[in-house]
């Protein structure tokens, strides 16, 4: 634990991204970590499971310590799919309650979904996208189910004679490499592509933003989602200029706090509780780096 906190302390700036598979997986460790981070003034992102978000008050502690956005593997809205995949931590959990809880704490959600498990037919794509938009999930990551060698899923597909190729280059979760049960290969591939197009359509970006209670959270959702998917030339320019790090400030400002007592909750740029938003200086600094 001390090593983890010391490492965090050594990192410059405010923003952190925990790449742990499951940041809330060990309750005591996570609780100690968040307690230790509380006074550090960080904003951070991480990943956790559906059940851990509903269990106890760990997620509140995380929010207090600066958690502003979380990756959640919802995977599927279909119980049979979750059972078949042994993803028991999602079973019997109310996804809507998970989302409500996170949004009440001002935490944005990156929902991860997988398509093509045996319970999925061609109607799964629009159902999944519509649900995510309605719930105000900020960003969605979609995958075509991919049986990686070494996994039980792979063994099952192999035994069933359902693997289409052993060209590993195609195992990138964007291509179909096994025979789906309730739809065709083309339906799976096209439905996956369509899901991305639909979720990130301007219409749905607006619609999803409006799912939030406060104007500030709405704007944050809007900027985060559109920033991620709609400003490719800007990102590419920053990469070409080899100044991507300069964009990190922008990310920090979008991740700043949206809950609490606001003097003016309607203004995106409100300074609250010592959480510095980006100053005009920083903005012009970034502008000069990318233009």
């Amino acid at each position, binding site marked *: 634990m001390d090593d983890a906190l010391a490492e965090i302390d050594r990192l410059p700036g405010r923003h952190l991204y925990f790449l742990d598979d*499951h940041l809330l997986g*060990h309750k005591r460790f996570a609780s100690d970590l968040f307690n230790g981070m509380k006074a550090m003034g960080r904003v951070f992102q991480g990943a956790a499971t559906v059940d851990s978000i509903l269990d106890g008050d760990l997620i509140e502690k995380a929010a207090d310590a600066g958690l502003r956005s979380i990756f959640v593997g919802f995977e599927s809205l279909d119980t049979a799919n979750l059972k078949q995949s042994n993803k028991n931590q999602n079973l019997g959990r109310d996804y809507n309650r998970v989302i409500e809880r996170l949004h009440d704490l001002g935490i944005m959600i990156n929902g991860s979904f997988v398509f093509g498990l045996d319970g999925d037919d061609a109607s799964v794509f629009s159902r999944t996208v519509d649900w995510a938009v309605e719930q105000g999930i900020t960003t969605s990551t979609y995958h075509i189910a991919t049986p990686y*060698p070494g*996994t039980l899923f792979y063994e099952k597909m192999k035994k069933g004679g359902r693997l289409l190729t052993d060209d590993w280059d195609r195992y990138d979760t964007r291509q179909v490499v096994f025979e789906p049960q309730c739809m065709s290969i083309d339906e799976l591939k096209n439905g996956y592509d369509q899901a991305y197009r639909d979720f990130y359509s301007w219409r749905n970006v607006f619609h999803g933003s409006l799912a939030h209670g406060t104007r500030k959270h709405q704007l944050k959702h809007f900027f985060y989602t559109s920033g991620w998917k709609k400003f490719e030339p800007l990102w590419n320019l920053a990469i070409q200029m080899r100044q991507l790090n300069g964009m990190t400030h922008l990310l920090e400002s979008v991740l700043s706090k949206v809950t609490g007592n606001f003097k003016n909750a309607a203004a995106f740029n409100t300074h609250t509780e010592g959480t510095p938003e980006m100053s005009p200086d920083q903005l012009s600094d970034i502008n000069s780096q990318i233009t």
Partner: protein
Amino acid sequence: MKFKFILPSLLEAESPLWRPIKYSLFPPLGLATLAAYLPDGDEAVIVDQHVQKLDLDDDPDVVAIQVYITNAKRAYAIADQYRQRGVKVLLGGLHVTALPEEAAKHADVIFTGPAEESFPRFLEDLRQGRMQRVYASQTRSIQKIPPIRRELIQRRLYLVPNSIVVSRGCPHHCEFCYKDAFFKNGRSFYTQ
């Protein structure tokens, strides 16, 4: 000795649908973690092909390559080139652990599972001249490990240079996930 740690770019990073930003988010923390086990006096460089040019006309003593499923072919091609010139090549990562026989054809040494214990064991063997072909993870802990070598990471090339990992694995066992394969024969969830 000169060590070169390489993360070859994933194949999808070159497709027409490639979004460069998606592959410029996180630096290769695993390689920087391993570099921390090198003794003082050894040189280390990390090359992440997603954000840097990979130059193969150099002369490191040891090359260590991190292999995922969609960079496997590229990783093997890089490995073959270095080995032809007598450079020792180490391969490790998810794909190597899933398919060790496949990877072994392109390596002097393969690592299966997490390498926080096996990599320093390898370094000791290398110095004693008794290098093995396969280093499988034996004991597992990330408590009291040397601090990650962040100075080997070029921060300005990443959107999220402050990426950090304080645990390994996960308490769950989803059938589509690599985790159980990677952490076979030992603990599959532990913290710092």
